[in-house]
């Protein structure tokens, strides 16, 4: 029984944190409750007040015959008062309804605006690789005598852009609302080692020197979420490193993860923007030939904030930068 209660409570806490419609619903329920209570009090209070008046009047010395007259008078007066109060309440509730209706629709309106913006951004990001594929295809068809070398070149271009689109669409899907979050006990050291394994090919290709100081701790979040964080940060670090560069990964028992690279780094003015959706750092555009979707850090930030953690980026003393994530 107790376990059922605590499970229910946990479920509610998750709903509160993750579902903004649930939050809005609870807030509105409280609003409605307060308003209805106020109306009830107003109405009942008036009634009580009038009843008390009759009571007081009856306690005063009044001639028996005029009681009947008094009752008639009183009933008329009372009816008028009720009518007045009703009109007043009606006007008041109309205004309140308008206000409440607005509050009802606000989260929906906000959500729709966010979605519209997201669609616009996503469409724009898709246009670039598509334009390149279209251009590659139409350009080769104009060449009078296509050589084998040219064909291969064009096919390579089309493949590269297609891959970019594939990775973009799968990252876009990660932005779907996290309504059902499975909380697990994640052992961070194991995950970091797994991601390092996954990225081995890239590490070898650039001959990266990896320096790790890993102290294990546990976190309650979905394993795939923590994997996303490590993957995106490490992948960025590799991308921006020079050949034979060094990357330092640290896991500290104060629930901290830090990944440092010594590569091309960021400029001061870029730092506020790097967590924005689809933002790609300036130098990245020539360095990695426009690779990546720009969504990586934005996804990472979403996950971290959802779990009430913090992420910060600092420029390295000599070169590169360090990303530090602090979990709760």
């Amino acid at each position: 029984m107790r376990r059922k209660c605590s499970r229910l409570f946990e479920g509610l806490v998750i709903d509160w944190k993750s579902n903004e419609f649930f939050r809005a619903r609870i807030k509105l329920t409280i609003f409605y409750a307060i308003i209805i209570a106020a109306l009830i009090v107003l109405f009942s209070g008036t009634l009580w007040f009038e009843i008390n008046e009759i009571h007081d009047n009856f306690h005063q010395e009044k001639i028996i015959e005029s009681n009947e007259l008094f009752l008639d008078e009183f009933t008329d007066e009372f009816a008028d008062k009720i009518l007045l109060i009703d009109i007043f309440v009606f006007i008041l509730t109309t205004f309140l309804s308008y206000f409440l209706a607005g509050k009802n629709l606000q989260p929906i309106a906000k959500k729709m605006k966010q979605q519209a913006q997201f669609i616009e951004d996503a469409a724009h990001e898709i246009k670039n690789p598509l334009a390149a594929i279209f251009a590659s295809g139409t350009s080769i068809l104009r060449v009078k005598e296509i050589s084998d070398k040219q064909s291969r070149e064009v096919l390579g271009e089309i493949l590269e852009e297609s891959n970019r689109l594939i990775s973009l669409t799968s990252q876009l899907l990660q932005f779907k609302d996290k309504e059902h979050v499975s909380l697990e006990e994640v052992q961070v050291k194991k995950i970091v080692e797994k991601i390092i394994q996954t990225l081995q090919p890239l590490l070898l290709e650039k001959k990266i020197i990896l320096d790790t100081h890993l102290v294990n701790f546990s976190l309650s979040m979905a394993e795939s979420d923590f994997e996303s964080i490590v993957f995106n940060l490490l992948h960025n670090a590799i991308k921006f490193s020079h050949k034979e560069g060094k990357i330092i990964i640290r896991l500290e028992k104060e629930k901290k993860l830090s990944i440092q690279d010594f590569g091309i780094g960021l400029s001061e003015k870029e730092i506020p923007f790097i967590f924005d959706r689809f933002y790609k750092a300036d130098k990245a555009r020539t360095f990695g030939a426009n690779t990546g979707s720009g969504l990586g850090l934005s996804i990472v930030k979403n996950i971290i904030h959802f779990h009430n953690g913090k992420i910060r980026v600092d420029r390295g003393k000599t070169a590169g930068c360090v990303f530090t994530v602090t979990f709760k």
Partner: protein
Amino acid sequence: MKILLIEDHLNLASSIKRVLLQENFSVEHISNGAEAEIFWIANNENIDLVILDIQLPGKNGFKVCETIRKKGISTPVIMLTAKSEMNEKLAGFMAGTDDYLPKPFNFDELLMRIQALLRRSNVLIPQKIKITSVITFDQLARKIEKNGQEIRLTAKEFEILEFLVLNKNQAVSQQKIFDHCFDFAKENWSNTIEVHIKNIRKKCFVDEKEVLKTVRGFGYRLEI
């Protein structure tokens, strides 16, 4: 005809270059805005048209165009971009562009717009020119024909011949040919020019050796 292509998306730039070279344009490609601006200013006399992307590393397309126009350089500009909203277009025209083409675009359209812009600057010859009784030079179609049959020249050869046609009946120095048709960073050019001239002669003027004359110690002259 030298076109400066300023575009940071490398695959797209490859395709555009491919098409322009096929049409006998000479293409210079730079993918960084700041670098492109420096190059453009230094070589503006020899650049006939610029294709300018907006989102560039180093310095964005709008700013580059503004700076160029402030310096009084009037090279025709076509802006390319993935954004096609009105306020983007307005910003482009305010920055000084002559035309605006959203991506993805059709290459036929791009070429038509290039031709339209080149027509307005004084580097186009409106009709076909008869170099000899049997050889016609059509600058608009970017073709040279002998007895109605197209003679296939390389892009460089076409460019050199075009330059000589534009300066017809005048002696043109090797230096000038180099400045207009070649990229500085490249190889020993005087030898290269000689080789190209030899090929042009071989392909076009086998029977009419008088047409393309060598001016000893100076350069060449095309006599029409």
